């Protein structure tokens, strides 16, 4: 019992310990080998910049802007992707029509749309939100459709036998059964939305800020510590967002995680 508990504690602190160990090894490497900051700044130096950028407001401001763009675009993608995915799952006609478009557009590298989007909607907020929505839309719609299609036939038959009408079957059986698959699509969609929004901020020629802008502008003047600080923040925030999604997933569909 005691051994099991200490193993549990060890398992929960191990990820944090590896982070600390890597940071210490990195610091030691930089100091002992005398590596110039242009190649690799020491973590202690990155932390100093992290603190400075937090205090002067540049980090919270740019992070806030990026998150806003990600979430607005993601919300549009999630709503439209789930709706279309469910519609495709319910109607063969919609599925046949939409499938052609999805098959053609999904494999397109979304980053290649950036020059076109700049021409169509300019370099303002609309462009970043559109790129975020477009990139997140496809994983959501594909996963939702797959989830609906893969609903256990036995569950549907059982509902029918119990007297459920088609609408009740869809709302009470099919969609709940597709939730794990929908969440898998939302996870994927969020990941690509983060990547594309940051890339759009780097490429799009905007002075509206954002983490991508902070990264590229720090890189342009060779402020390597700021580049590392921005990357660390992006990585941590990305992990938090993904973990948050997993937590919501567990709350909404607890039966999937049993065992």
């Amino acid at each position: 019992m005691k051994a099991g508990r200490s193993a549990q504690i060890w398992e929960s602190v191990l990820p944090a310990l590896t982070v600390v160990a890597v940071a210490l090894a990195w610091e030691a490497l930089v100091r002992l080998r005398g590596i110039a900051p242009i190649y690799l700044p020491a973590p202690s130096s990155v932390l100093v910049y992290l603190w400075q950028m937090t205090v002067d407001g540049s980090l919270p401001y740019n992070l806030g802007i990026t998150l806003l763009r990600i979430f607005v675009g993601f919300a549009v993608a999630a709503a439209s992707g789930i709706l279309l995915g469910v519609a495709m799952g319910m109607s063969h006609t919609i599925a046949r029509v939409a499938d052609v478009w999805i098959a053609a557009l999904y494999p397109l590298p979304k980053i290649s749309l950036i020059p076109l989007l700049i021409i169509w909607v300019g370099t303002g907020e609309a462009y970043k939100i559109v790129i975020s929505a477009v990139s997140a839309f496809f994983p959501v719609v594909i996963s939702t459709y797959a989830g609906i299609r893969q609903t256990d036939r036995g569950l549907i038959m059982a509902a029918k036998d119990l007297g459920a009408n088609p609408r009740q079957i869809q709302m009470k059986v099919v969609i709940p059964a597709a939730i794990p698959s929908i969440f898998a699509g939302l996870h994927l969609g969020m990941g690509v939305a983060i990547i594309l929004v940051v890339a759009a901020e780097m490429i799009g020629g905007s002075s509206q800020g954002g983490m991508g802008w902070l990264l590229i502008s720090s890189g342009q003047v060779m402020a390597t510590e700021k580049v590392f600080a921005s990357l660390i923040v992006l990585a941590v925030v990305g992990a938090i967002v993904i973990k948050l999604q997993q937590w919501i997933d567990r709350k909404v569909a607890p039966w999937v995680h049993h065992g």
Partner: protein
Amino acid sequence: MIGLMGRLLAAGMSFCAALIVNQPSRAADLVRVGEGPFITGGAFFIAREKGYFKKLGLEIETKRFEDGAFAVPAIIAGELEFTLMTANASLFNSIAKGAPLIVILDRGHNRPGFGYTALSVTQALHDDGVKSLADAGKLKGKRIGVGALGSINQYNAAQALLKAGLDPAKDVQWIVNVPQPDLMRMLGQNQVDATDLAYQFGVFAQNNKWGPIIANGDQIVPGAEIATYAVRKDFLAKNRDAAVRFAMAYLQGIKEFNAAAKDPGAHADIVDILAQNTALNKPELVKAIAPHWSYIADDGLPLVDSILEMQDFWSGKYFSFVEKKVPREQLFDLNVAKEAKARLEKEKPFN
């Protein structure tokens, strides 16, 4: 018979001696150079295409970068020995943070009459009276597009604003991270109100009615440095002679480049070389923008005072892109150009 044999032997020995004399004394030194498709690199292209580097025992391997900023990481990583280096904030930060580089040669500056950069405004602003540098005060609150933060273009535009009594950090909105051809189009679509570009793009925008030029770089900050050549310190320490020979060939290129900028019609060969090696592509375009090719210091020396003024500006009252200023001796090695000039005058390898 003996006479015939003797003559044959003598002829053979002379042939062998001639072969030995004509053989290079050693294998050519390989020099990897980062360059871009810009006319400011003209002197280098001339020296390479006309075989001046080869003549001095240098084998040049050129790596092309669409933007000078991309060449800097490559030289830091040891993939290049020489690189173009625009006079921007990243130059100072790179060296301050331990990049093993030193600036040795000029690669073009805004000498009066030869300005390579141009400040353009939208047609609407021009119609509203922004027609020259004196009207730059009307840019208050406007969007100014530049390729990169801390770039020579941002420096020029900021200096124009300062001359008009504006605060370049607070009185305008900077639109950054946009390639110059895109900035040109954004000017036409009123997505930026003003932009500082290489002269050829300014002229192109003007000719397409996207936005007229209101001032050239040489009118804003006469004699401001645009770009330099930097060399890896370890290469310079081990192969100083090769670096000096590089500068000798380059100095010859400068001579022909500057002469052609003044009178391109009389230097068709140079114009062709520049057309083939730059984004301008066509000889008529190269000619059309002359003499706005920039001017390269005849002695090859980088413009030390101008570069240090830029460092002060980027770490001064308005911007803090440079946190730690680099002393002059850490930034420059002027002796390479000086030695090259002296050897060129003494050895006259290209006469």
